[in-house]
């Protein structure tokens, strides 16, 4: 294992900003894994720390395939994690809206450029990503529909779902999108949580990455278990929206099968406690997202389902 600083910026009153990478093996740039890019992505950092520990062990046991190099960047934004701010501390910009970056541009453009310089040109790229809405997701692999995506490859993680997402204008400045455009097979891995560490789903993510590495012949150990992934499009997700605001009380979990008409959640009046609204499943399906904020706004997608295939 080789630990090195991939990018740094000097600050006036803080320690230097450093992006640290861990390299395993030598040779062809095979797989690059990147963790938290935002200050609330604790789970994403945790997943990477487990992978660093695992890869270190595999390297010591001589279980890495020779001639293949693996890079893990656990955290692309330590400043924001340390100050518990989601975006860049000074100007609230999002590094994951700055790719491929610009080395002579503004601070987060420079950071994105510095990171992209280190992560481009790898055969495979995995980002532990987070959703902008707070809540729990069914674990899945997500790919941008750029025309370069290979969904069959994504199935090799053995996650329950592979989600293909048609990029919206702002997606074109994300790492995943630019990775693909620059020739890397890029995958975003979504575990259940973001801010809160969930060991069970981190373990699932770790197994998924190891399965992928095994099937891509990057490690000598054999793939174990995993799901036969179902490929869905992000437009296939059916949102259950709050038809009023209030306290949100949900009764289902991600991955749970539900029947059409089944009670999923109640919205309660915040002053008088009565049920303002009852949210039910619009179709037979699997719960893919459950919002976990105590209060909901009107029109917010508090739950998402994937329709059961007939």
């Amino acid at each position: 294992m080789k630990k090195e600083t991939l990018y740094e910026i000097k600050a006036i009153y803080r320690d230097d900003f450093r992006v640290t990478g861990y390299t395993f093996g030598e040779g062809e740039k095979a797989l690059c894994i990147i963790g938290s890019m935002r200050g609330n992505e604790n789970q994403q950092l945790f997943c990477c720390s487990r992978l660093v520990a695992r890869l270190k062990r595999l390297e010591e046991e001589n279980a890495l395939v020779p001639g293949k190099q693996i890079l893990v960047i656990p955290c692309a934004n330590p400043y924001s994690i340390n100050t518990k701010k989601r975006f860049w501390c000074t100007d609230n910009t999002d590094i994951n809206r700055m790719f491929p970056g610009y080395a002579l541009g503004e601070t987060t453009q420079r950071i994105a450029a510095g990171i992209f310089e280190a992560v481009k040109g790898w055969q495979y790229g995995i980002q532990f990503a987070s959703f902008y809405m707070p809540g729990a997701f069914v674990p899945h692999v997500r790919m941008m529909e750029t025309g370069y995506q290979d969904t069959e490859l994504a199935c090799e993680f053995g996650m329950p779902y592979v989600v293909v997402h048609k990029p919206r204008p702002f997606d074109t400045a994300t790492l995943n999108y630019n990775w693909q455009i620059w020739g890397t097979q890029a995958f975003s891995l979504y575990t259940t949580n973001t801010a809160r560490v969930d060991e069970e789903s981190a373990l699932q993510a770790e197994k998924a990455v190891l399965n992928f590495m095994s099937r891509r012949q990057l490690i000598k150990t054999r793939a174990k278990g995993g799901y036969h992934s179902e490929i869905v499009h992000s437009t296939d997700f059916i949102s259950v929206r709050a038809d009023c605001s209030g306290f949100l009380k949900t009764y289902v979990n991600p991955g749970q099968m539900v029947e059409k008409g089944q009670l999923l959640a109640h919205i309660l009046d915040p002053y008088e406690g009565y049920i303002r609204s009852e949210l039910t499943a619009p179709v037979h399906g699997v719960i893919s997202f459950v919002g976990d904020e105590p209060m909901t706004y009107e029109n917010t997608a508090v739950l998402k389902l994937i329709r059961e295939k007939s």
Partner: protein
Amino acid sequence: MIETVTQIGLPVDEQLCIKKNRLIPDDGGNGRRISVITGIHGDELEGQYVCWLVQQRIQKHPECLKGTVDIYPAMNPFGIDSVTRGIPAFDLDMNRIFPGDTDGDMNEYIAARIVEDITGSDVAVDIHASNIYLTEIPQIRINKITADRLIPLAKKANVDFVWVHDASTVLESTLAYALNSRSVDTLVVEMGVGMRITKEYGEQLTDGIFCLMKEKGIWSGDVHTDHIPIVCVDPDEVEFLNAQVSGVFVKTRNHGALLRARDEIGLIIDPLQGTVLDRVVSPCEGWLFTVREYPLVDQGSLMARILKGHMDEARLKGGVIQ
């Protein structure tokens, strides 16, 4: 007449309302319409004064009003109320969610209703104030895909500078892009600085809005155009200066200054050690149309934008070598 563009119930005893004031002549007017919009970014307040001034002038000469004037002073009331650029509960830039979606979440729904309400206007002016970090000369920014259509209109808006920038996919999520795509000629104004009101710029732009109203047959009264803009259509004419080091910036030149090559714009200092970390100098001769206002800078922070050349035009606009 105050109208509610859209409203949505909040969890605890409050409605989020987007409001506008519609001003029309007693006879209903000629159907022509201008929309004056501001407050998409909650920390940009320059447009507040303009909204007020436009109405003051109409109230003084209501007989000159021939069409409809819609004033939207607060597109992002949460942001304005909490001194926050984005939408605070969502940490979302409102100007990245247009055209919105009536079946989407609360913010997308509001965005869609706003676009729906403004659509049909003959012209719209979306007033911004850069941000809290930069001070800007009154200027209009135009996406090059709408340049042919909008430059003639922008020249009549009494600003000092019209900057045609490259198309960017990300900018397709802005209100201006959504409105221009719906045949509403929309001009994006940047002027002054975040969290402040610069009265002279407010008055200058208000003059420009009345010129646009006259152009579109909405106003029959006298108008003033003291400012003819410099138009920049070549992206290579704009020089960006970014901080080479992190530190505290103390400016020595104000926006609007004419610069010679190597002129100092400011110093980046280290108050801990009492040293000068860097001297920010102009790499070229030109007109300083943007300058850093917020003192704290990170390596890479934008310090200035300089329009290269155009010295004679800038001198006519009152630009001086400071």
